[in-house]
């Protein structure tokens, strides 16, 4: 416990400030109750999601590099994102920046051109679930639960990009990439690839019952 | 199966005498114990058991040994032959068998132009798939029995008949059920030997194998008579098309020769063209079917014409610019011929002369392009080929043939059949029913058959 850090840069992403406002509000409340601190990433921009990535490689990388640069400016080396798409995009950018020095140099020069601070260090991005699990954990959730979810059957749906692909998030292990040791912290904190359980554990700690609906829970 | 080998004139011979090998194969072969050998071994066993009678090739047939792809020595009888003709050849390319007969006449060989032969019915087998092994075997054995009875050795003109007969032989020899099923039929037909055996010839022989075996004599004739007429084929570019049914059906039983692509491709046709001194040109789709595909010409003509045009005619025209495509089967010749016109209608016109090896050889040896080789049946561009071969007077020859046709029809109209027969004899023109084993024209066979009805 406690590998990621109690105070992190918080990247909510566009949707959390629009249609899924409830997610944003809940996240902040839960973090506060669990004694964790989210440092709102001022003036962030869209991660580009899957769409921009399909249109422009370098453009998408730049979008995420700008957010990383903002996090560094606010003094963080960890970003937490509650959205699967956002955390994926940041992790993907991290992967390409880490594994290809040419790309890293080009991105930095473009950041400079765009009036954004250079990336002195590439921050790591975590999904908020991992952060909750490792920095608070089921025990803390249990303690802090005021209205237990007893009798509530919860189907925990993690979504595609919560654990995938491990190349981006954790191992970097493909030919030409760096060694598996590149991100020991990330490897330690990651949820199980094929059978994620962090959400199950946290909800069960809050008193709910998890229902199994494999194999669809990460489809 | 151990095979004791005895020495003979051509190499090693098994005790029964029909399976032969040279001591050292003249080119790399599959294996001495090729999988096809057991057919001959079993034929001898069946003969010893009294089930079959092997119609053996004897000195009278003046056999010439050739190699097959396994290095086995196949004996090709060249004399005293029983002509098993082809349905499509006589109907569509009469110059094809005519050229063969012309050669045999030239060489003074004895043969029987058999009127009592039936179709092999492989047409039926390929065309619709409705035939069956018993019917095919019965038809084959009937024809072989007829040949055996006359004392002449069967020579198969058609590639499909040849391939089908090789397959049927294998089935018959390998399957007792088939022999048992076919025997009662043959008995009813009176086509068993007196002691109730079926007759299977020692070798099944295609006419192209005969041409192959006789290539040096054909060359002599070319040098003596063809060249005397100013014919020279040395500049002619020849693309060879090997017929699937002759060499892909039972691939182990067809001539291969060290002279022809180091024994790695079928030798017949290529070898005779080379012997005549023409230029054999290689092209990338040499292995492909002409498109006839037998059942395709009947049921999927689109496939036939597409294959012929795209995979053969186009490639031959673009890659090698051949003057002539040489074939050795009925279907291939007609397919290449007729599809040039279909191609023309589609804007894919690749004109090239098409004929069989024996027709080309006959032309080279000075046979009349119209009276014997009957090129007027050809719809492809054969005229440039004739020019290139040095038959520059083909226009006069055509005129001569047209006058002859007129003369024949006058005689015929007047009912002067005896004069007609004399005329045929004088011009040594092939006439299907006139020439028999005795060499004497048999007027009675045609006396009531009007020719050239117009």
């Amino acid at each position: 416990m406690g590998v990621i850090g109690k105070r992190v840069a918080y990247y909510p992403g566009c949707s959390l400030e629009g249609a899924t406002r409830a997610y944003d509000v809940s996240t902040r409340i839960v973090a506060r109750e669990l004694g964790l601190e989210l440092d709102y990433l001022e003036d962030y921009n869209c991660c580009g999601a899957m769409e921009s990535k399909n249109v422009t490689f370098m453009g998408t990388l730049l979008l995420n590099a700008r957010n990383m640069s903002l996090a560094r400016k606010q003094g963080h080396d960890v970003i937490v994102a509650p959205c699967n798409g956002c955390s994926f995009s940041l992790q993907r950018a991290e992967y390409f920046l880490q594994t290809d020095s040419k790309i890293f140099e080009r991105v930095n020069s473009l950041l400079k051109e765009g009036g954004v601070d250079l990336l002195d260090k590439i921050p790591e991005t975590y999904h908020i679930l991992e952060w909750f699990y490792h920095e608070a954990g089921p025990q803390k959730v249990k303690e802090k639960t005021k209205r237990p979810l007893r009798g509530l059957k919860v189907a925990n749906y993690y979504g595609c990009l919560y654990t995938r692909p491990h190349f981006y998030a954790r191992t970097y292990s493909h030919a030409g990439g760096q060694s598996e040791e590149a991100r020991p912290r990330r490897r330690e904190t990651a949820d199980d690839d094929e059978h994620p359980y962090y959400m199950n554990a946290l909800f069960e700690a809050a008193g709910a019952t998890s229902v199994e609906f494999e194999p669809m829970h990460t489809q | 199966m151990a095979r004791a080998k005895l020495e003979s004139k051509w190499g090693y011979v098994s005790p029964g005498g029909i399976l032969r090998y040279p001591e050292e194969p003249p080119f790399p072969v599959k294996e001495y114990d090729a999988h096809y050998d057991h057919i001959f071994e079993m034929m001898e066993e069946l003969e010893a058991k009294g089930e079959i009678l092997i119609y053996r090739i004897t000195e009278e047939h003046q056999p010439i040994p050739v190699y097959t792809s396994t290095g086995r020595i196949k004996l090709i009888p060249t004399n005293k032959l029983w002509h098993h003709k082809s349905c499509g050849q006589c109907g569509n390319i009469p110059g094809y068998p005519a050229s063969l007969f012309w050669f045999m006449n030239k060489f003074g060989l004895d043969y029987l132009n058999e009127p009592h032969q039936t179709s092999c019915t492989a047409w039926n087998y390929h065309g619709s798939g409705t035939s069956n092994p018993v019917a095919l075997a019965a038809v084959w054995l009937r024809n072989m029995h007829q040949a055996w009875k006359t004392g002449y050795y069967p020579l198969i003109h058609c590639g499909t008949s040849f391939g089908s007969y090789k397959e049927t032989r294998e089935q018959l020899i390998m399957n007792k059920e088939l022999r048992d099923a076919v025997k009662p039929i043959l008995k009813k037909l009176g086509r068993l030997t007196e002691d109730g055996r079926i007759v299977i010839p020692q070798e099944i022989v295609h006419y192209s194998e005969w041409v192959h075996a006789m290539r040096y004599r054909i060359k002599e004739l070319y040098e003596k008579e063809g060249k005397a007429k100013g014919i020279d084929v040395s500049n002619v570019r020849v693309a060879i098309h090997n017929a699937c049914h002759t060499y892909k059906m039972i691939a182990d039983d067809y001539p291969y020769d060290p002279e022809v692509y180091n024994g790695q491709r079928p030798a017949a046709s290529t070898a005779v063209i080379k012997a005549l001194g023409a230029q054999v040109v290689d092209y990338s789709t040499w292995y492909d079917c002409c498109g006839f595909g037998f059942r395709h010409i009947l049921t999927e003509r689109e496939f036939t014409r597409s294959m012929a045009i795209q995979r053969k005619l186009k490639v031959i025209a673009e890659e090698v610019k051949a003057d002539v495509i040489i074939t050795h089967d009925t279907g291939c010749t007609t397919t290449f011929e007729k599809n040039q016109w279909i191609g023309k209608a589609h804007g894919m016109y690749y004109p090239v002369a098409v004929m069989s090896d024996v027709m080309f050889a006959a032309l080279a040896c000075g046979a009349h392009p119209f009276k014997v080789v009957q090129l007027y049946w050809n719809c492809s561009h054969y005229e440039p080929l004739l020019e290139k071969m040095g038959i520059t007077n083909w226009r006069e020859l055509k005129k001569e043939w047209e006058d002859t046709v007129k003369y024949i029809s006058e005689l015929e109209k007047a009912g002067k059949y005896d004069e007609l027969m004399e005329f045929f004899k004088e011009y040594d023109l092939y006439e299907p029913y006139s020439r028999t084993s005795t060499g004497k024209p048999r007027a009675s066979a045609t006396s009531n058959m009007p020719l050239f009805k117009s």
Partner: protein
Amino acid sequence: MAKSVLVIGGGPAGLGAARILGKLGIPTILVEKEDRLGGNPILNHYHTLIPRKLKPEQVLGPYIKEVESNPNVQVKLKTELTACEGEPGSYKVTLSNGETHEVGAIVVAKGFEHFDPRRKGELGYGLYPDVITNLELEQMFSREGRLYRPSNGQLPKRVAFVFCVGSRDRQLGVTNVHCCRYGCALSGLQAMEIKQHYPDVDVFCYYMDVRTYGTWEYPFYWAPQEQYGVRYVRGRIAGITYSPADGRLRVKHEDTIVQRPAEVPMDLVVLVLGMEPSAGTKKVAKILGLAQDPDSKFLVPSEESGSNIISNKPGIFIAGACKGPIDIESSLAEGEAAGAEAAAFVGAKVTV
């Protein structure tokens, strides 16, 4: 004094056996039918050996030197075994030079032959100069040190490797149904060598399966693809033809992944040859009465023994490619094992 041991064959396995016997102080007679030791790798000028990418001289040179300089080993070149009589422990052997010897044990290492690809006529070997064997490619590297098309001496733009020529093929009868074991790996190595020297040459491997077994997977299958961009296409080559239009070969196959026929132009085609027991192996098997595989005619070990160097005859040991396809380092090791077994069989007391 211990009885002597006869080693038949001076290739890797025979050298391995003679070397260990000589070291153990056993009087050894090594007969080799050619005029020098080394077997196929030396006599046929292999270029680089799998899996360690060493030259034949690097691997076999020290063995040859050791065998030739060891006073316990008599090397008899241009000599063959012609007859053998007697009992295990005292075999009376006759050699082609007329000598007779009494030996306590025999090590047979008569090796293999390369398949003659002219037997697969559809591949056009011997017809088209640009269809060569992998052995000829080795020799092109080792003797001339460059890659070229034999038809015109030019550098090929594309090279195709045709796997399993004379292997896994019932069409050749029952004799060649086995896998050659080395072909996939050697092709990967040769392809890499081509790409190292000529990065612009496109190399294709046409395979049915890729059998770079064990630890060979990475260096001889992954590396050619990942580091050198060698392309693997699944489909057995059904024919090689020549197009006079562009002077290039056509490799006829079905791309089984695309499920479409393909006739792709190539400038140089390399046939990856299978292995067959050598004529010498078959001959020695007859003289010594050794068990042979009824189909392939390779020697087979004793049915009772779990070791593959123990023959069906007591006192006769078999090693190397006479028993079936094998790589050179295993061949050496088998020779050494057979030599040690033979030493034990003749009752040598070995001090350490």
